[in-house]
């Protein structure tokens, strides 16, 4: 995961539940998996990923190589799950209206900005916490746990507030 990246935008609407996201957005566009390229980003409206907590939906996006999901709002479980899978999930007010499908955006997780590369306009979002960045950098929660807890000498930062070490 990069903290700073560019990607081509695919747009989706409001209230898309995880059942319809399953299979790389198959419930909304059955052909989407043939169009999307690794590094592309999804931009959606409100309540993205609402509904079931089944992880096949967010995993299908990660496995398709989606670089980030930006939406007006994202369901809580879905947001944490995407981050725990190593995929930035960003709630950003105004994101669904300031960019068109096919345009390129540039995202900076640390400063919390997303910029439309076509017209230069930008939107801001609350920057990611250090803990979320650490998990994303490790490629998700499981790789994070495996490497951080492997052995006390393996460099697990004792001051890291996310987990208490054994």
């Amino acid at each position, binding site marked *: 995961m990069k903290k700073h990246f560019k990607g081509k935008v695919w747009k989706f609407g409001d209230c898309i539940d995880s059942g319809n996201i399953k299979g790389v957005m198959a419930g909304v566009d059955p052909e989407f998996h043939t169009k999307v390229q690794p590094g592309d980003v999804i931009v959606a409206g409100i309540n993205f990923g609402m509904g079931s907590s089944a992880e*096949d939906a967010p995993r299908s996006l990660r496995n398709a190589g989606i670089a980030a999901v930006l939406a007006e709002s994202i369901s809580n479980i879905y947001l944490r799950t995407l981050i725990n899978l190593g995929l930035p999930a960003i709630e950003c007010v105004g994101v669904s209206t300031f960019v068109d499908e096919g345009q390129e955006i540039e995202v900076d997780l640390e400063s919390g900005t997303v910029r439309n590369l076509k017209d230069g306009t930008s939107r801001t979002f609350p920057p990611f916490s250090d803990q*979320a960045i650490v998990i994303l950098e490790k490629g998700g929660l499981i790789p994070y746990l495996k490497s951080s807890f492997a052995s006390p000498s393996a460099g697990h930062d004792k001051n890291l507030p996310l*987990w208490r070490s054994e």
Partner: protein
Amino acid sequence: MGMTITEKICARAAGKDRVRPGDMIDAEVDKLYIKDLRFSKAEDPKGLYGVFKEVLKDMGITKAWDPEKVIINFDEQPARSTRRLEGQERAKEFSNEHGATLYEGYQGGIGHNVMVEKGHVRPGEFIVGADSHSCTYGALSCFATGIGFTETVGVLATGRIWLKVPPAIYVELAGRRPPWIWGKDIVLRIMAEMGANGAVNKTLEYGGSAVADVSVESRLSMCNMAVESLALNAVFPPDERAIEYVKQVGNTAFTPVASDADAEYESRLRFDLTDMEPFVAAPGVPSNGQPVHEVIGTKINQAFIGTCSNSRIEDLRVAAKILKGKTVHPGVRMIVTPASYGAYFQAREEGLLQIFEKSKVLLTASECGICTRPSLATGEVCISSGNRNFPGRMGNRDARIFLGSPATVAASALAGEIVDPREFLPA
């Protein structure tokens, strides 16, 4: 400045004196619920246990963090797919090897109700569940929220979870609750008022003078729906009714936590229940609620009382009261799926099952059932006591699902169309 009940429980779980909304915390979990399906290979080719074993190996440990705090339930019995069956086998293997509590057979039902009825939910606790409707438990004054597959592995390995402390919306219930208004009506009205985006990643905290008159069953239904407004959790105060209920299911050791008088809320909403009309959500999203008169006359093909949202004993009693001595409309399949075997046996004891039988209701075993399994043909319309009316939720994108209270479902089943249940309630 005081704290809300959610902030207090989060602070305690994170080992801090106080937390504020927006704080990222590392919380110690008191209880972890896992449904059987999470153990299947649907989400990861290695399955939950396979991934967990790998993590244990790499972390150099041999056991789950605290198996006594892990509760597993079989949500579908008997399993209807080899995938589910395989998940149930792995769940058993996990529980045997690690010592987790597992409910199946006559002990079980729908996991969320089993959790509550078997006394695993206590006021003041920090509970997570590997299912989105784990927010149901907030009815008993605890913090409870749903988590995903990967997070579940994390909790099993470390007993901890990261999350952002949510800001709270205070929802005041005022006035007098009419006897024909239940939790489902109230929560559908609240969700409609808040709008589809009203509570995303927030806490819904219920309070006000009318709360005392809302049954625990209705509170469970209201908290169950919290995830449908995309709230992180919902919570009721630990009042006499809640404490009484918790003691009745066999719990004595718990420390109730209440919000401070000067706790800070992001916003406040007030709902007067006096003269309230029953509510129904139109197909699409659960926040499509409207007073029942708006949809009266809509023809239905199926009426369903089931799911973790509304099929507890209170719901079965109301339905039986309406159905007694009458027969379901010939054009309607009415299906009743009790929330747990506890509710099932209680209903039998009270003679409710016989009433359903005589009314030509299809009674099923206690399980999640048709909440997600296909039961609707193209173009069919269902009124359901469940929690989700998304396109395709019951297996067919071209079927339409309305949500309403069990009273509305039962009365509509008799009429063959959506009706105002008040006209069908015996005096």
